[in-house]
């Protein structure tokens, strides 16, 4: 009977675990997680603090034993959660951030000392480093908070410089890893500012842009996400728009296609873009004619008569649906076709 119970229990457990694995999303146990698991195996092999080791324990010590198990479980969990990346300054700060939130909830008055104790229990070899970073982080947060109370900086560059000075002061060169994304953005902004001043041809600017992207975001920059953003960013430059504006229509279409192709778009995407560009060019043509006619009407009519004429013109030019939007926009003071076309955007 006992064997039967054990068998039933084992089968149940295996079934539950199997079902769990089956239902677990592939992405939740992704390649990355597998990597974490592999590294974690070595991290969780770290010895538990002496006080957490399983003792023999009498029946009277069952409650204490459960508390110890709970603590051991927590330590094991945190090692699993953060162990694979514990030597990375960015993830150290992220962990500190997350644990600070938890500790503040659990120990509103003594969260700081409890957190430091946790560092020693979970990652004894890193405890000193983490404690140092905790204090640096607290100081940095307080400094950032204080900035909100005043208008200290003359301009954005001053503010940016002050931010980096403070980060380097508190975190040393590790600041470049902690704020790596911000650093990349800084570098990319600098490239963009230089490109915005460039008198080179459209093609030359395109090449420079792609080189800059790869330099800042790596060789795989074009394979990474945010391709729409990356395409947009270059085309948003005023001098690039001027280049496009000065081209004949056919050349502009060809250049835009080449640019997007060099940004890694496939044939299907290029065809969709051709169609969208074409639709927008047609709308712009209609919009320009509409504005001319609208201005002519405004010289002839006024008041309700003008309103009626303009409404009729809107429907005639754009059709009922689009006319309603144009009407709404103009009511709000926005005249879409007064601004020059922004190629690749409207």
């Amino acid at each position: 009977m006992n064997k039967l119970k054990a068998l039933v229990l084992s089968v149940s457990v295996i079934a539950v675990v199997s079902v769990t694995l089956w239902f677990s999303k592939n992405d939740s146990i992704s390649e990355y997680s597998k990597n974490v698991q592999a590294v974690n195996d070595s991290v969780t092999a770290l010895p538990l603090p002496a006080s957490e080791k399983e003792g023999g324990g009498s029946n009277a010590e069952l409650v204490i034993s459960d508390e110890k198990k709970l603590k051991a479980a927590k330590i094991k969990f945190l090692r699993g959660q953060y162990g694979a990346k514990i030597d990375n300054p960015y993830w150290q700060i992220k962990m500190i951030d997350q644990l600070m939130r938890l500790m503040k909830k659990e120990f509103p008055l003594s969260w700081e000392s409890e957190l430091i104790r946790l560092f020693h229990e979970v990652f004894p070899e890193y405890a000193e480093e983490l404690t140092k970073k905790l204090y640096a982080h607290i100081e940095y947060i307080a400094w950032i908070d204080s900035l909100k109370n005043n208008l200290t900086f003359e301009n954005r560059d001053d503010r940016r410089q002050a931010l980096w000075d403070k980060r380097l002061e508190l975190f040393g060169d590790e600041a470049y890893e902690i704020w790596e994304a911000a650093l990349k953005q800084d570098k990319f902004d600098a490239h963009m500012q230089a490109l915005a001043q460039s008198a080179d041809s459209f093609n030359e600017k395109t090449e420079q842009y792609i080189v800059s992207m790869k330099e800042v975001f790596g060789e795989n920059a074009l394979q990474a996400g945010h391709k729409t953003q990356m395409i947009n960013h270059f085309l948003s430059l005023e001098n690039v728009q001027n280049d496009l504006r000065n081209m004949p229509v056919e050349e502009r279409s060809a250049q835009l296609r080449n640019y997007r192709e060099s940004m890694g778009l496939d044939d299907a995407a290029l065809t969709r873009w051709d169609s969208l560009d074409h639709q927008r060019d047609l709308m712009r043509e209609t919009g320009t004619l509409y504005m001319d006619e609208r201005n002519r009407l405004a010289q002839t009519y006024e008041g309700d008569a003008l309103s009626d004429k303009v409404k009729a013109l809107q429907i005639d030019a754009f059709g009922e649906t689009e006319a309603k939007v144009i009407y709404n926009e103009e009511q709000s003071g926005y005249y879409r076709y007064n601004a020059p076309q922004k190629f690749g955007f409207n």
Partner: protein
Amino acid sequence: MKINKILSALAFSSIGLLGTSTMAQAEVADETQYPVIFAHGMSGWDSIAGYHYFGEDGYGTFVGDACSFFELNGCNDWISNGQQSNNKAEAFQVTSFNNSEVRGEELYNHVLNFMATTGHSKVNFVGHSQGGMDIRKAASRLKDNFNEPRVGAMISISSPHRGTSYAKRIVDLYARNANDEFCGALPPTADGTDPCLEFVDDIANVLFDFVTGAGTANNDAIAGALQLIYDDYDANDGVVTGAKAFNQNYPSEGVAGYVGSLITAQDDNNLSPLLGLIGTAVSHNADGDGYCVDDCNGDGAAGQGDGNVYDMDDDGLVPINSQQMGYRLQYTPDDFTCAWYGCWNPLDTISQVSSTGYVADLNLPSSIQMTSHEAVLDQDHLDVVSLGPDDLDEEEFYAAIFDFIHGQGY
């Protein structure tokens, strides 16, 4: 996600019975069916791949970037890989200061670009602050263009759908003077530059570390402010402005499969110092949890107060009676939990609140929809984006939104 949570707990129980243990795996949000497009608020920005409006406080990361095997830094480990690798998370820069006619049109065009580039034919929208109004126009334009709705879920966060009294105070104090000039009350600058632009720029500098300037050429701070006042500000200025008219022109109904909103508010004592400064600068503290039809007390926002300005009735910029669109959503942080047999770290959750019903007509919410404090997220207007420090984990918060959108079938 929920079934995973239950099964994970069961698995841990079972493992405990066996007397063994394993690594606890944190959950990740389920990948949404359609891409999630984020829309920033007034004076916001997107960032190309670095410092991000929708990011973890101050680190330059984007909440929609998942961690991949090769990318260990600057990513959100609550997001599934597919969300990023399948181009399903993006944010676009629209003009920082302008009305939602302009910004919504720009957003619509960005989405068309996105569709052309990626091949996606539908999107979800998540809009913060004025971004929650912009997405309504963009969704409407998409429907017009394709003759059918092309938006799955449309979710606003802290959005002033029915105006905000702060905007009216700012316009009253700064935008209208004898010469009808914005910032006309400001003293001239020593170097002769436009004091208004200096003022706006200073605010932007204080608020944000990095603003690239890209896409901000159409800035019109007056138009932006007037958008956030419920009624038409001036019947004689030749234009029709305000949230009420915009709501009539671009309702939330019929343009998206699911419509919901997260509502933020905080006690005055806990507000970001910057928001406190704004309140002080305009000598105003909103009382935003009373009911009436339209802007019955003329403060610039629909509804009225309940007589107590100090409670959680606004988030420092937007009153709660302005924020509900569609269903009200509840955010529930879910910290890691331990029992003797193991620990697990479930994803935070977003759920739909039933007691506050559904706001179908944005200009006609019910009394309970304007006054209820249920499910109001205890964060200020800026806490839910990357302008920290604050106690919100933005990465997990937005991951929970991804997961919720997936749960709605989008």
